[in-house]
């Protein structure tokens, strides 16, 4: 059942409201209910509690709260589209790996997407709901004074990847790492600027454009580039969602963490 629900076609297809019925959609861990009365659209959502008691996911909880949107004109269709998370994602490879000096590697990371529900109200896009398909925990990437709040995922960070149409709520992100420094680089964690990524689809899998990360040394400013084109694995993929932040190049001080540089006691280490 979960496989059918998470199928890529099912997840991101439009919802026809003309029948006046209550519509249900399950994308990753999020259950969404949509209904419409006149010029009003009602959307409710809830995330599956994996630690709590399991219940029928399609049944509408009695205590759910609705988001209500009043439109100018009549709305026939609600569109559901994937978007990348609103803040960067820190990826912790299942096993730390070393990148020799001047070496490069391409890894693939599956990133849980957000759900963007909107309608065209007299030709103008109105957002009804934006919510994560999977609730991710957060982490801090940086030192005690500067850094970013990021989402946290662990990944196999594999060099090969197979499309999986039954996990439609995940996009595969190709990341090309290049160690341009004269030292070995130990990659324990990687900060991916996902708000800058574009989403493409080849009908089988959602992809992002390729991210190129250059490492130039411990105290050097690196560079991140976003290709803006479909990845090599899916050259004919079509554009689904533009990036949240349009910026082709970023020059961060830090994209990698190769050592634990802060600890819970508030003391710098490493």
């Amino acid at each position, binding site marked *: 059942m979960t496989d059918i629900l998470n199928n890529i076609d099912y997840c991101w297809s439009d919802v026809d409201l003309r029948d006046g019925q209550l519509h249900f959609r399950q994308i990753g861990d999020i259950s969404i209910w949509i209904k419409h009365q006149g010029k009003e659209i009602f959307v409710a959502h809830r995330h599956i509690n994996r630690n709590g008691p399991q219940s029928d996911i399609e049944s509408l909880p009695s205590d759910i709260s609705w988001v209500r949107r009043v439109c100018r004109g009549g709305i026939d269709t609600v569109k559901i589209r994937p978007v990348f998370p609103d803040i960067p994602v820190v990826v912790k490879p299942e096993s730390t790996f070393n990148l020799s000096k001047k070496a490069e590697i391409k890894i693939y990371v599956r990133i849980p997407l957000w759900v963007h529900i909107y309608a065209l109200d007299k030709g103008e896009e109105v957002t009804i709901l934006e919510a994560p398909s999977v609730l991710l*925990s*957060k*982490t801090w990437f940086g030192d005690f004074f500067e850094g970013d709040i990021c989402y946290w995922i662990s990944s196999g960070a594999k060099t090969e990847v197979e499309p999986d149409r039954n996990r439609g709520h995940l996009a595969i992100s190709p990341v090309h790492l290049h160690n341009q420094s004269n030292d070995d680089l130990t990659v324990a964690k990687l900060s991916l600027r996902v708000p800058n990524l574009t989403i493409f689809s080849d009908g089988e899998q959602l992809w992002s454009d390729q991210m190129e990360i250059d490492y130039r040394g411990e105290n050097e400013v690196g560079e991140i580039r976003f290709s803006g084109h479909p990845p090599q694995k899916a050259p004919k993929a079509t554009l689904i969602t533009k990036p949240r932040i349009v910026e082709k190049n970023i020059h961060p001080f830090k994209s990698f963490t190769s050592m634990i540089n802060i*600890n819970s006691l508030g003391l710098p280490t490493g």
Partner: protein
Amino acid sequence: MGHTFEYIRNLNLKDLLPLIRVAVLLFVGITIVAWMVRKKRIYITKKFSAQQGLIVSKIILYTGLSLIFISILRELGFQLSTLVGAAGIVGIAVGFASQTSVSNIISGLFLIAERPFEVNDIITVGNITGAVLSIDILSIKLRTFDNKFVRIPNETIIKSDVTNVTRFPIRRIDIPVGVAYKEDIAKVRALLLDIARNEKVCLNEPEPIVILSGFGNSSVDMLLLVWAEKADWLQAKNSITESIKMRFDEEGIEIPFPHVSIYAGSETPPFPVKIISDNQ
């Protein structure tokens, strides 16, 4: 009264012209200054910070008002050079009479230059904690969490310890936990870390840790240290504490608490105590 009417009746356009110019100057000048203050404050607050927006708007306000004041004096025929001389003498006299105010003004300049906090930061001064509403020439204004308005003179701020609670983006939450001596410490430690890791508002890194802080009178004292975004601090503290109680109850882990026995003295009869066996 009759003289006043006579004076007004004898006024011609030439006499009225300076007064009209003053009125126009006041109206147009104040309108332009107010518009500029508002526009620049919104723009700079958006572009930079609320603090910088406030400073720039104050500079525009005071400069604009000074220019209007000088222009009005000129329109009314005052000699500015004479006024400047007089202002110097008056300034010395006023300066002696208002040492506290001058001290506050100078302290305010130090505060603006040093920037220990900005508008919207949450600070603690003495036993007052609140969000900074404004940093002005004489004082700073705070809004406390129970919605009181507090004015603290700049001089007091300079002389006091000031804690800026929201300067850094993440904060640590220290949660003391006491468990009974009979409990398995390793199990309690694992449970506390599990609670922290399952709490969505707690950060994965810096990693939560548990410290065995000591042996109390009736409990083994532990400390759970977790990190959260500054905006989530209170929510994280509350939900973790709640989760600890719930999970300890589920796992049967005892949280001891001190018991008080009241001895009423030898003059009074002992408290009646009835022992009931488990079977009854």
